């Protein structure tokens, strides 16, 4: 008897668990499914609950030569690559110094690199745009790269610092003892070991730049259209299909990197972030 009730109870809790997991799945994936439906709905108006015509018509519209989707895609990718380049060029030396070299007021410097994440960024972007007007940087790709590098730099410095402090020093010392110069030691020993962490930092910076909207909106628009700007305009113009299609394109790098990031962001680096 007690056996039966225990079985029943465990069956009941398994059932409850299954329902709970179903709810989580609905909350996570329902909105995404909604996006997919909109991307393929050709005709959908009240009182119809579901689209009355399906098809690829709007995909053709998004990618027609003059629509600007290709240009936005190209802009987004080239801006993101340049942002990664600029942020890493600045943060690899900084990260190395913060992790390995003697510095005055090191914790203050670390704090300075955290500040941009500690206060709302919108007023900063608004004022960057106002300052950039004086230098003719508004509406240029370089201006947008600079704006994207601000959050990029923050991630990059923190992760790079952690990556360099996780490097095994005894191997470096061994290399130096064998007569390798400091630069060669850095290139052959330090850099390869820190590489996964630096790669993870680059991925974060890349994703952040691809998804960035607010800074681009104030500094780049209307001349520089990235995918998020294109999507925003389509959405505000009531072109839900076009917005949904653009959104799906934006999701490709995000989801792709989410699946591989763990390979690069190892636990030993993760645990050193912020130190």
């Amino acid at each position: 008897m007690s056996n039966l009730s225990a079985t029943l109870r465990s069956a009941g809790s398994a059932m409850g668990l299954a329902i709970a997991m179903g709810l989580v799945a609905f909350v996570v994936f329902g909105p995404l499914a909604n996006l997919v439906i909109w991307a393929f709905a050709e005709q959908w108006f009240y009182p119809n609950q579901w689209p009355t015509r399906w098809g690829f018509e709007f995909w053709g519209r998004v990618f027609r030569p003059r629509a600007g989707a290709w240009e936005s895609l190209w802009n987004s990718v080239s801006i993101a690559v340049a942002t990664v380049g600029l942020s890493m060029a600045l943060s690899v030396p900084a990260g190395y110094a913060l992790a390995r070299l003697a510095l005055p007021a090191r914790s203050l410097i670390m704090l300075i690199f955290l500040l941009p994440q500690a206060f709302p960024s919108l007023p900063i972007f608004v004022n960057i745009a106002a300052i950039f007007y004086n230098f003719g940087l508004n509406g240029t790709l370089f201006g947008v790269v600079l704006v994207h590098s601000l959050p990029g730099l923050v991630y990059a410095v923190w992760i790079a610092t952690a990556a360099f402090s996780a490097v095994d020093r005894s191997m470096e010392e061994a290399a130096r003892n064998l007569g390798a110069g400091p630069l060669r030691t850095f290139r052959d020993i330090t850099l390869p070991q820190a590489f996964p962490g630096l790669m993870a930092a680059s991925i974060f910076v890349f994703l952040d730049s691809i998804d960035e909207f607010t800074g681009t909106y104030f500094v780049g628009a209307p001349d520089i259209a990235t995918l998020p700007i294109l999507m925003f305009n389509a959405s505000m113009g009531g072109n839900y299909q076009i917005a949904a299609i653009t959104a799906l394109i934006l999701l490709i790098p995000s989801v792709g990197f989410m699946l591989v990031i763990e390979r690069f962001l190892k636990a030993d680096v993760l645990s050193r972030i912020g130190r």
Partner: protein
Amino acid sequence: MNIRIAFASLLAASALATSVSAQTLNVVTAGDTNMVDYINDYLGPKFEEAHPGVTVRAVGTGPGDGGSQAIFEKINAQKDKGVWDVDVAVVHQRMAGQMVQDGLLANYRDGLATSKLVTRETAENALGVNVSGYVMPMFHSQIAIAYNPDVIATPPQSYEELAKWVKENPGKFGYNGITGGMAGVGFVFGWMYAFSDMADEIRNGPWVDGAADKWTPALASLRDFNQSVVMTPGNAGTLDAMNRGEIAMGPVWMDMFYTWVADGRLNPNLKLMILSPGMPGQPMYYAVPAKAAQADLAKEFIAFATSPAVQAEGIVRRFNWFPGIDPQNVKSELTDAEWNRLFADVAPETLAERGWSMPQAKYFAAILEAYEKNVAK
């Protein structure tokens, strides 16, 4: 390695920027996405066909006065430079006036082949500012009320009836306030025409100091009205809310309405009407900035865009706007059925009687500020 990537991409970026060669015509337009679509899908390709080697690049700056403000800031930021990167600006009335006053626009119209075809009053006067010579109307458009006759058999015909109707049917009427595009702004102006007792001064001037103080009752009733309506996100948002059955009535641009119906994006049973005493309409203007890099090409572009054939095919037939040049020149290029489609729901007489202009520039700004101060908060 990363430095190399950075350099390479910076080089690529600057190469891209300079490859925009001497034969590119930069058309910067305010307004909803249909403005960019018009240039990208219709006008640009046609113009390029007639001018080999020319590329028309269309840039949209967003709906409503915010879009025109962006064009102003873009040009104003380059004020001291020798050449500006905007060849043709498509702007709203208020900004056209301000830009003429600030000396940012060229007086280009007299040499234009199509300048004789313009008869609209708005080509000379933009909300109280003399703009004669500086602008060509691209089209004229009118704000109207869209409604679903399946839900509302006999819609209210005036602002007064509407106010009463909304009280009895809360949540059925929707508009986009004043931050999301001109359809909502125009609806608010119509409200002021109806209830401020100053309709004539607001539209024709002169400016009276302290006018805003007299609007308290009108604004208070609008605030009260807003309690029973649905706020929609933008001009397109109102149409979209109608589409999804969230509201049964709301102010829209007539052209957008017809375009959406033709596109299969809007229930074709919906209808349009204009409230009495009147609702505003407005033109969009073609203007040439004073130091446009391609001024001559810009003039050719505008002459082409205001030719009867383009006005008939592009403006009326494809995008459902009222022509910017004199209708007589356009009508002959269209069949009667095509022309009458513009008046399918709203008869020409009603349009003449209830299609009013926007407020004069100072009143325009004063009403928006008063709305933010008294109604929105």
